[in-house]
């Protein structure tokens, strides 16, 4: 009969067999450390790439220079910040009530079967690639707006497309928030003879408030970060718009457009705008965390 297996192993192998669990935990910790370090790595690389221009012209230049003309050392990001801010503001303003109402529909008005189908539809809407939204906006929406008021590629087109894109986010988060409301609240409201709309205004929305707020923050993040769709429908003229029909350029579109040929300080300036976007996202993530802790 052959010897028991463990005796024929080398010292290293037998050590490994005895400490298998510990080895596994350290391996897993290593993998988790990689996963956790990526965000740090992103931050470090964005800072590293933006430092040259920040050291040369300072932060102020990005807000006070005459124009955005990186080839001539002038780096005014203000028109792009307006572009991002206005598209974000408009789309969040439109998508929030629409998304919340559509979640209310799912929970309190729709028959079970329709609610299930509608939820799947919202999930599908969330899954459509931004480039497809952009393409549809370019071939369908922009010509329509053009007939209304040329040139068509405009702040309005951007807001419309973005509203469609972020609506699923708020709708799904609101849906989850409404699912958490204790059934007793609703039964109580019914027993008191509160009307359906009264229940929703005075019971459902206040109870789900923090969940809804998180939804709004998430959709805001998506609206700020969206690139391809706004790049395709907004016209990309560097200007502070006077009307909703003016073409605009967002921070994200600016990076996507110029990164291909940017060199030296120009490239560095684009990384500065990336860093700005990342900072906003980090602030939003902290806000979510704070709201989450309060509950």
């Amino acid at each position, binding site marked *: 009969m052959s010897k028991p297996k463990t005796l024929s192993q080398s010292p290293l192998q037998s050590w490994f067999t005895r400490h298998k669990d510990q080895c596994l935990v350290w391996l897993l910790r290593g993998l988790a450390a990689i996963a956790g370090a990526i965000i740090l790595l992103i931050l470090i*690389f*964005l800072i*590293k790439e933006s430092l040259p221009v920040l050291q040369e012209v300072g932060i102020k230049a990005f807000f006070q220079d005459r124009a955005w003309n990186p080839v001539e050392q002038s780096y005014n990001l203000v028109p792009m910040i307006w572009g991002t801010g206005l598209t974000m503001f408009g789309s969040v303003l439109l998508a929030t009530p629409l998304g919340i109402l559509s979640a209310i529909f799912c929970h309190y008005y729709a028959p079970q079967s329709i609610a299930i189908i509608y939820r799947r539809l919202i999930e599908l809407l969330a899954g459509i690639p931004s480039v497809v939204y952009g393409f*549809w906006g370019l*071939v*369908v929406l922009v010509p329509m707006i053009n007939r209304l008021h040329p040139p068509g590629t405009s702040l309005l087109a951007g807001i419309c497309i973005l509203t469609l894109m972020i609506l699923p986010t708020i709708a799904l988060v609101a849906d989850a928030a409404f699912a958490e409301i204790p059934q007793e609240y609703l039964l109580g409201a019914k027993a008191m003879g509160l009307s359906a709309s009264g229940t929703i205004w005075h019971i459902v929305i206040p109870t789900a408030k923090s969940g809804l707020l998180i939804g709004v923050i998430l959709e805001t993040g998506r609206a700020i970060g969206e690139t391809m769709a706004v790049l395709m429908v907004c016209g990309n003229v560097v200007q502070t718009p006077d009307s909703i029909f003016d073409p605009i350029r967002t921070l994200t579109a600016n990076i996507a457009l110029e990164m291909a040929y940017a060199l030296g300080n120009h490239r560095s300036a684009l990384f500065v705008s990336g860093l700005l976007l990342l900072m906003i996202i980090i602030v939003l993530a902290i806000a*979510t965390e704070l709201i989450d802790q309060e509950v």
Partner: protein
Amino acid sequence: MSRKASSKLINLDQLFKVVIWLIPLSITAIFIWILSDIVIGGIGQISWAFLTTNPLDAGRDGGIAPILVSTFLILAVCLVASVPISIGTAILLAEFTPNQNWFGRLVRRSLDVLAGVPSIVFGLFGNAFFAQTLGLGFSILSGGLTLACMVLPILIRSTEAGLRAVPQEYRLNSAALGISKTSTLWHLLLPAATPGLLVGLVLGLGRAIAETAALIFTSGYVDRMPTSLLDSGRSLSIHIFDLSMNVSGGDSNAYGSALILILILLIINAIAAWLGSKYNYLYD
């Protein structure tokens, strides 16, 4: 309450009901509008030849064969890089870390932030880190690795959810039998958590294949058939973008490519839904 006021209230209730039905109806209508527009525009383009020939004349003519190949290569790189890291992290978070552990909390927080990072920022990072610092250049490898960073939070979250859905008795029984943690993990927990992992995988794939902005400066624009992972390769989504923005007269082929992309996504979604339903009644 006077009768007038109460009838006014009922009217308000009715009005609210109308509004609340109108919104989902119009959202559904817009969804059908987008989808039918893409289908009507694209269905005429799609043929076996479209899928198997090279693009000609900057993509106005010809097919999308090299673009499909590049897309699948990018996805493959993305999965090969992200799956081991995600499974490892998810196991650590779900099985080996108490909820209040500082390391677990730190990793979870950083993943939460990572999930919100805009894709264009991933593109900048991928360009600076994979393409330049690691010297991979504009290549399928850079693009795939950038996407891997992007899908990590989705993969980890759903794998973790899958592991947490495994009943606690499994672990207790296994511990009572004196089975080591490693064996428990390997023979009990991982098989039980596979459906959750698969759902995450499918969702991550969906996110990755839809991505454009993160790939423009990492995997590049070249529409030739890639010969190695270090070649630049154009993904399907970039092809749609390029045809509709930079190539006049490219719209019809852009429609065709968009339809292919939507079809792939619908299949991915159907698989996710099927897996999800299968996995929901596993422990009920």
